[in-house]
């Protein structure tokens, strides 16, 4: 099945599908607010964002999205319990200092959490590591070890295990490679994984 892009991002397209209309959503690390603007326009979602980079925050506010400039990990503390229907973290989990704390906070302030992350067990990553003997570099992980913003690498399987351990209910899982959906061997074949989950 093909995936319709939103602003050239297939994970956004999936998230766009997962979020129910007329709900409240918080996008952590929302960049210039593209996803939130799309959700607002197309699904009448009442959205908020958190973003660290001032220039991105400016663009987001200029497009009418309410974004708070700050560090997402400390920003999570201020929101009240169950303030949102969805708390979204797209392509940022692997860059957080305390990913587990972030995920738990997401479920504290949101009824559902949505995470999208690059799968560190994708076959290209494995092949790159195996063949070069160096830290893997692929289209998905294009950085040198010393300039990578990614500090906590995880795989599809890692997330599934964590969900069991933390007693989270995984409501939807969508796996992507490029713009195509992956249905078999996701831990090997998926470049990006998207999980919709909630507290049990």
């Amino acid at each position, binding site marked *: 099945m093909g995936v319709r892009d939103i602003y050239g991002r297939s994970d956004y397209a999936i998230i766009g599908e997962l979020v129910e209309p007329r709900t409240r959503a918080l996008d952590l690390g929302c960049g210039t607010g593209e996803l939130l603007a799309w959700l607002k326009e197309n699904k009448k979602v*009442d959205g*908020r964002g958190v973003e660290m980079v*001032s220039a991105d*925050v*400016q663009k*987001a*506010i*200029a*497009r*009418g*999205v*309410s*974004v*708070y*400039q*700050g560090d997402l990990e400390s*920003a999570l503390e*201020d*929101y*009240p319990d169950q*303030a*949102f229907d969805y708390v979204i973290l797209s392509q940022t989990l692997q860059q957080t200092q305390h990913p587990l704390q972030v995920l738990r906070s997401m479920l504290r302030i949101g009824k559902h959490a949505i995470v999208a992350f690059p799968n560190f067990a994708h076959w290209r990553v494995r092949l790159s590591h195996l063949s070069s003997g160096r830290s893997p570099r692929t289209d998905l992980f294009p950085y040198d070890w010393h300039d990578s913003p990614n500090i906590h690498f995880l795989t599809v399987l890692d997330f599934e295990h964590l969900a069991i351990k933390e007693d989270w209910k995984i409501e939807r899982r969508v796996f992507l490679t490029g713009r195509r959906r992956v249905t078999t061997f996701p831990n090997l074949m998926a470049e990006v994984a998207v999980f919709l989950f909630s507290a049990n």
Partner: protein
Amino acid sequence: MITQASIVTFDSLELDCGVILSPVDVAYETYGQLNADKSNAILIEHAFSGDAHAAGEGGWWSNMIGPGKGFDTDRYFVICSNVLGGCRGTTGPGSVSPATGCPWAMSFPPVTVADMVRLQKKLIDYLGIERLLAVAGGSMGGMQALEWAVTYPESVLAALPVATTARHSAQQIAFNEVGRQAIMADPDWNEGNYYDQRPPGRGLSVARMVGHITYMSDESMRQKFGRRVRAGQNKFEVESYLQYRGSQFVERFDANSYIYITRAMDSYDLTQRGSLTKLFENIATRFLVLSFTSDWLYPAYQSLEIVSALRRLNCDVAYCNLSSQYGHDAFLVEVNEQAELVRGFLASTFKERAAGEERAS
């Protein structure tokens, strides 16, 4: 565009101190057209030394207000009034007291930011506007915008407090006190009774010089003046600039107003009425809070105090700490970035408001 302020006189205004001021004049200007359902009105709040002349030639925020600008007067009806206690048309210590027939001078009752806003509410009612699309202002103007949201939440769809605080800090009070002492140390001040003689220009000018230092930053002063010397005057550029700004100020500002308004700012502390989280509790107002990286007079942490309280309540708030080297002056000079933010924020507020009313009807 109108450049001449209109004056409206109200019978009375009850002040926080208990005094009922009667009558009270308000000087105001408007720009743009009020639409048929009166849903496009924006109240602009001036900072400490501003006045009702916000836009048009010589307007203090003319780069932000006008056709196609951040506050687009082709779309919105913009109102700006001189504050209570001021000296630019609105009743203040320089006005004539009806009881004595002489200027109030220091017998003018103390005023607060809440009093200023209460008077503005009368003006808005007088103009027949039930609900403002937005209230916006920087510095003391931001305090008034906050006050509006807290006191009249149902009348304010969006608030834009810029480079401001919910309570004046010791440092902010300290600088204001230096200004007041400079005025009062001038023998011409004469306990405030100078209206028929020479005003305390030297004191007021020094007060303004101190003010200007606090509005700039080390970086902006280095860039603007450095150690350059003004040719033929044996004076540093920075000395010459401050003296010029000081002497200019004397011509347009009343020393007693300086004392009254700075005291209103210093006494401003929203938290005296309860925690910010409690005060913002039932507010549906949308917020755009802005601070500037080099503003050491109204540092970002003061904006964040407001933003954090709003976020704890899950209120609709956008916040950005804009990068600037201009210090507190940034809110007046950093036009491009601010205008872009303000334009987008107002447009979406206006659009959603229209959508909300469609649903309601």
